[in-house]
């Protein structure tokens, strides 16, 4: 190869090589990293969402023995932090032990005297108890957990360690807490004096107990049944004297009416307000008493909950007291609500309705413990297995098994963090649980759920409520519906407008005008959406509200005035019109539009008077008056299009040829007359059909039209349409412009008019590009946030009404995410909505992109 010596002198300088290497590596690594970072987003969203769908998890299980017999135990409870377990026996003995290790702590007693315990009623936290005795008396009692935070220095000496967190001095527990301190957990008992219920001294067999807070004064409600079937309703209220501080307890007792024959009651439940009592016997027959008027209780309803082959084994309430849990001897488990029904067989119109039915347990339901954190609960079956279930999502969170414990009694800790179970022979199990998102399942996110206080199952979004007992309603359906509704109405407005404008710009506007219009539209695409939202909400919405008649009329009048102008234009000799092509014609068209709009403005009030008794809003809101006017308006476009199509398919060509046979001023005139005849016919047909339809009872109010709200979908449609028009317009125009000129020339050369060329040659060629433009516009509308936040009322409703508000997925995130606690259920659910939004737009955009690339390939081949 020539002279090797000379070549070797031409060595590349070292730093060039090094720089090249560095650049090579840096750009490759950097590029891959950036792309990876952008892709990370999807992965991270999924990573946050996935824990929603995990059930529960057992963190640890401890087993030990306690010297107690489960059949003796009448009440089992855990303290707030799951440190202490307390079991009350029939005799009044109270066993207390460290839940984590089983180390026994101090022993206490409820002093029942010589009385024999026959029945127990307790509140949801298992800490307030009502004891019923064989002599017809009852006593209220309380287990009080006392939590004191003390500093490490002031802890007593000589504590013995229990586990890595807790220490004891033999009586109480000292738990380490984050920061520097200890929590001292102690138990105290409190037994109140006896209340005589049964005058005849018959034993009490069923007790229902509920504490209801009225302001800061708790009121105790008791439902008591004795062995003869006599039942009483007792309310006690403790008042403290403002001056002396002395407390007095007031006891009101009223006898409930007898159900007719003797019933042996086994269960008693009181609802959340303390105004409904449900007593049940073994066969599942429920007697509901209405005690809204305490002095005059009424038997409101008698109901059989179970078929004959089943026995009632669990009859209790979930947190809040509005969901009644019914468990039976064959493992069936369901929830009942008290709901107002027209066909209720009761005196007060309410009735118990089975609203949720759970997958049956393996065998008889024998135990129940409700969580105080949401609507979860634990049940026990007769095989000794423990099931942790959520009341709304109906998800089986956990089935605790795999231990040697044959559980007989269970208790959940208040925060749903742990569970204690006592089995045969004093085997005790203590589970630490993690159940972060029990209320979420595919069913609650996307299905109909029957919530407390609702007359039927529904798709509802309501993430926060006032009380602990609130059921979070996290259905994504109304949000997805809201997004689609806003998108649909805005595209209904924007797509035709943008496409027609794009066709006109690309095919009929002279080049010099074209060069000015396009950049204007492009700049509009970058208009901040917050501006559009503000104008829509504060300027447009009030105008549309007060001029709604004119706005509706404009949709009819503006196109009519354009078409009418076109027929007038045809009257002008062609010599003149040819000279006016281009900008002057466009200006004339603008004038025609303005004419139409101002006609709508002036005729609006008249129109409203004529059609809607003078006020459209009242007409919509009150459902008064005939539905015919609106049906007539709806029928107009249908009839118009139908008629035109029918004519063009039948006598259209012949009519056209006939029209051509006339000399110039007469042809256009006749053409105009033809059009007027069609318009007249359209009106007549619309009138007749609307008359017929309204006679048949069809009323569009209540479906796509209905109650008028100022910030409504129509306004959103306008504003979002405004945001989307420039995008669709620009992309569609690009697609049309990409059709090669030789096609146009060929078409024109064959004698086609511009109109025919545009309609039958250019548009079909570019149709896939135009379609992709609409899809991309749709993608933008789906994700648009500020406009929907500002111009809708953000009410998550599920109706098609164009005059009502909506809540879109994106708006929902913007409104709720700043308030959602990190890693909570709402937080993750909002990430889920983000993911849904992401998936929707990704799907739409990918489709658009694929279509567009196909179009490009096709266009290149032409």
């Amino acid at each position: 190869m020539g002279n090797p010596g000379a070549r070797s002198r031409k060595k590349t300088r070292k730093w060039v090589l090094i720089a090249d290497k560095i650049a090579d590596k840096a750009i490759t690594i950097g590029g891959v990293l950036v792309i990876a970072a952008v892709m990370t987003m999807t992965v991270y969203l999924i990573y946050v969402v996935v824990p929603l769908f995990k059930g529960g998890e057992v963190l640890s299980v401890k087993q030990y023995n306690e010297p107690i017999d489960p059949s003796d135990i009448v009440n089992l409870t855990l303290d707030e932090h799951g440190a202490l377990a307390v079991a009350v026996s029939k005799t009044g003995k109270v066993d207390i032990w460290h839940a984590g290790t089983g180390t026994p702590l101090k022993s206490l007693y409820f002093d029942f005297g010589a009385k024999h315990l026959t029945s127990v009623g307790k509140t949801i936290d298992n800490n307030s108890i009502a004891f019923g005795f064989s002599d017809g008396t009852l006593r209220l009692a309380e287990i009080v957990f006392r939590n004191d935070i003390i500093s490490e220095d002031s802890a007593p000496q000589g504590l013995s360690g229990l586990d890595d967190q807790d220490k004891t001095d033999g009586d109480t527990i000292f738990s380490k807490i984050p920061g520097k301190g200890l929590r001292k957990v102690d138990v105290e008992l409190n037994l109140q004096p006896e209340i005589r219920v049964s005058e005849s001294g018959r034993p009490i067999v069923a007790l229902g107990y509920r504490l209801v807070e009225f302001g800061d004064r708790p009121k105790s409600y008791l439902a008591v049944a004795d062995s003869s079937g006599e039942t009483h309703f007792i309310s006690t209220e403790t008042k403290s004297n403002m001056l002396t501080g002395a407390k007095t307890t007031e006891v009101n007792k009223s006898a409930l009416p007898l159900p007719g024959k003797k019933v042996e009651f086994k269960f008693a439940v009181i609802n959340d307000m303390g105004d409904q009592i449900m007593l049940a016997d073994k066969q599942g027959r429920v007697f509901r008493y209405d005690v809204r008027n305490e002095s005059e209780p009424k038997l409101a309803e008698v109901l059989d909950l179970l078929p004959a082959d089943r026995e009632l084994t669990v009859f209790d309430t979930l947190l809040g007291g509005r969901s009644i849990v019914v468990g039976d001897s064959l493992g069936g488990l369901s929830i009942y609500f008290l709901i107002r029904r027209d066909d209720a067989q009761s005196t007060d119109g309410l009735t118990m309705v089975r609203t949720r039915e759970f997958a049956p347990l393996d065998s008889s339901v024998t135990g129940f413990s409700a969580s105080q954190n949401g609507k979860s609960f634990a049940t026990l079956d007769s095989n000794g297995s423990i099931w942790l279930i959520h009341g709304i999502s109906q998800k089986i969170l956990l089935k605790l098994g795999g231990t040697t414990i044959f559980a007989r009694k269970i208790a959940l800790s208040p925060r749903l963090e742990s569970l204690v179970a006592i089995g045969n022979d004093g085997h005790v199990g203590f589970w630490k649980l993690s159940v972060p998102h029990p209320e979420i399942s595919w069913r609650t996110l996307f299905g109909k759920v029957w919530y407390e206080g609702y007359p039927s199952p529904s798709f509802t979004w309501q993430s926060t409520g006032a009380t602990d007992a609130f059921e979070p309603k996290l259905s994504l359906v109304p949000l997805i519906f809201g997004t689609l509704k806003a998108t649909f109405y805005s595209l209904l407005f924007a797509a035709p407008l943008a496409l027609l404008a794009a066709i006109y710009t690309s095919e009929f506007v002279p080049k010099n005008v074209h060069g000015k219009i396009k950049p204007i539209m492009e700049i509009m695409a970058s208009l901040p959406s917050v501006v559009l939202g503000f104008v829509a909400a504060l300027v447009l919405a009030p105008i549309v509200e007060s001029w709604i008649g004119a706005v509706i009329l404009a949709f009819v009048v503006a196109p009519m005035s354009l078409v009418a102008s076109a027929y007038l234009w045809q009257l002008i000799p062609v010599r003149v019109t040819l000279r006016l092509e281009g900008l002057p014609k466009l200006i004339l068209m603008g004038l025609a539009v303005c004419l139409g709009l101002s006609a709508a403005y002036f005729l609006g009030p008249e129109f409203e008077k004529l059609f809607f008794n003078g006020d459209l809003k009242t007409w919509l809101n009150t459902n008064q008056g005939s539905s015919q006017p609106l049906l007539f308006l709806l029928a107009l476009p249908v009839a118009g299009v139908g008629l035109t199509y029918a004519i063009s398919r039948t006598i259209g060509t012949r009519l056209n040829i006939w029209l051509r046979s006339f000399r110039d001023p007469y042809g256009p005139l006749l053409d105009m007359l033809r059009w007027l005849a069609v318009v007249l016919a359209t009106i007549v047909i619309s009138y007749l059909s609307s008359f017929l339809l309204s006679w048949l009872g069809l009323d569009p109010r209540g479906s796509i039209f209905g109650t008028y709200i100022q910030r409504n979908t129509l306004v959103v449609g306008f504003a979002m349409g405004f945001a989307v028009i420039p995008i669709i317009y620009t992309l569609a125009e690009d697609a049309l412009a990409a059709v090669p000129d030789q096609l146009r020339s060929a078409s024109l050369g064959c004698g086609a008019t511009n109109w025919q060329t545009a309609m039958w040659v250019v548009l079909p060629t570019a149709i896939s590009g135009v379609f992709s433009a609409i899809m991309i516009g749709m993608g933008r509308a789906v994700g648009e946030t500020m406009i929907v936040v500002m111009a809708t009322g953000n009410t998550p409703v599920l109706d098609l009404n164009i005059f009502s508000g909506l809540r879109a997925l994106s708006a929902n995130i913007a409104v709720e995410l700043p308030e959602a606690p990190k890693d909570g259920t709402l937080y993750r659910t909002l990430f889920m909505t983000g993911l849904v939004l992401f998936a929707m737009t990704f799907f739409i955009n990918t489709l658009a992109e694929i279509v567009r690339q196909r179009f490009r390939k096709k266009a290149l081949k032409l």
Partner: protein
Amino acid sequence: MNKDNNRPNENRKRSTDFKARGEPALWLLGGTLTIGLLMIFGFLTLIIYNGLSTFYPRPIEVLRLADGSKIAGEFIRSEKFKPEPDKIASLPEAAKKELADNKGYLKRLLFKTGNFDLYHEDYKWAPDFEIVERSRPEDMIYVKRIEWGPFIGKIVSLDMDGTTVGVSNLSLAELKEAHREAEKRRRRIQEIERGQLAAVNYYMDRNRLALRKVELKQGKESQAYVNASENFKTEQEKLEKRYNELSNEAASLRQVDSKYTITLVDVAGKEKTNKISDIVEFYPTNQLSLGQKIKIYLAGWSEFLTEEPREANTEGGVLPAIFGTFCMTVLMSIFVAPFGVVAALYLREYAKQGQLVSVIRICVNNLAGVPSIVYGVFGLGFFAYVFGVSIDELFFPERFPNPTFGTGGILWASLTLALLTVPVVIVATEESLAAVPQSMREGSLACGASKWQTIKRIVLPRAMPGVMTGLILAMARGAGEVAPLMLVGVVKMAPELPIDSFYPYVHLERSFMHLGFHIFDLAFQSRNSEAAIPMVFVTTLLLITLVFVMNIVSIIVRNRLKRKFFAGHF
């Protein structure tokens, strides 16, 4: 247009194929285009007119109503409205007649009456039929105040440290002089309280945090901690002394200031005494000449652009929002420019073109269409809660439990927007890289240049205008975007700017104000949206001017690029 008329011939029978001509359809097409253009022009006119006219002093009108009461205010607009159907019966005869004449509509006029502290409303609708007389008295004065919005009325007297001067003995020059003095006092108090006292507070807080850091690192028993706490004590004493001095000075100034008051009276005769220093500006609108009005108008703009907001953002300026928007956009560009270009270079110049790269390309294209709020969700969850919390744990344990980077802030906001706009830059850069003719690369390589040299010297300079276009478009998008910012650090009122005179000068963890969010907040969170609307329009005008200017620049750059290409093609 019409093929039949190519050769005009009077004798030929002239007829038209109307169907082929398609005139009605054409008019519909053209009509939609004009509707689109009308919408745009209407929209822009609305914004520009309202935005530009806000600061122009309008004449103050005094109205005498049918019931004898008087209101005074600036006329804002009139509108036709429909009275509630159940109230029509109780209207007076004149109104009923008007109603009948106007197809069920009545006219009403909106006046900005000010005096919010007296009546708890500052805008009033006056039905046209109730107005007996409209006049423009010369002596009505418009008083802009720091608090309570404007006062519209007359001056009664001036109380200067005990001596009361009635309005009859008062010249405008004296008033102006008193006001200038009061303004000086106000600025001095403001300087002490907002500047010097704030600085002392800042240092005290910093010392406390520094001590806490030593405690966390070395433990409470360590020598270092003992030393540090000694130091802290002496420092703190010094600072406290300084603090007391300053607050005493401020208090005494305030006391002096409170002795200079002005008593105003509104048109209904209600009096109101204000500190003179609470007055921003005052003028007898109806006496002003055009020149004076223009001066006030320009002063309004300069206040708007250079001052901080007052009165829950409905008055004053938007300087912090402008500054916040600017900082965020700049930060975002710092992130987005290199990363976007590098990614595009990789995709176009380095990656092996194949199935994978085209899939990536579709994905990147798609990401440009992902809703901005989704990026906001990601920014909050990933940047603030994952990244930020880790940074806090590592570097700012002394501030626990207060988050530093573990919450929204300008850094996370600009990173989120960078992520949002990086696909835009990648796509634009890639397109401009693709537009550089392959022959140029080959020529460079054939001359012996390395690949990097080719890219640096030949490809990138040619692609630069395209890159700039993409970048400017990204900036415009970033400046106008609000939804993701609501999640990652924008606030309605930021007490501190992200850049100030305290070390380390740039505080990336701080939350900030933003023009777009300012619009949202003003329009939807203020007590009276009517009172906020003028400010919203002005802010909107500012924002869209900013965005449009960026867009126009990018279009100009793009056109230049095209020209250069056609000229330089070989």
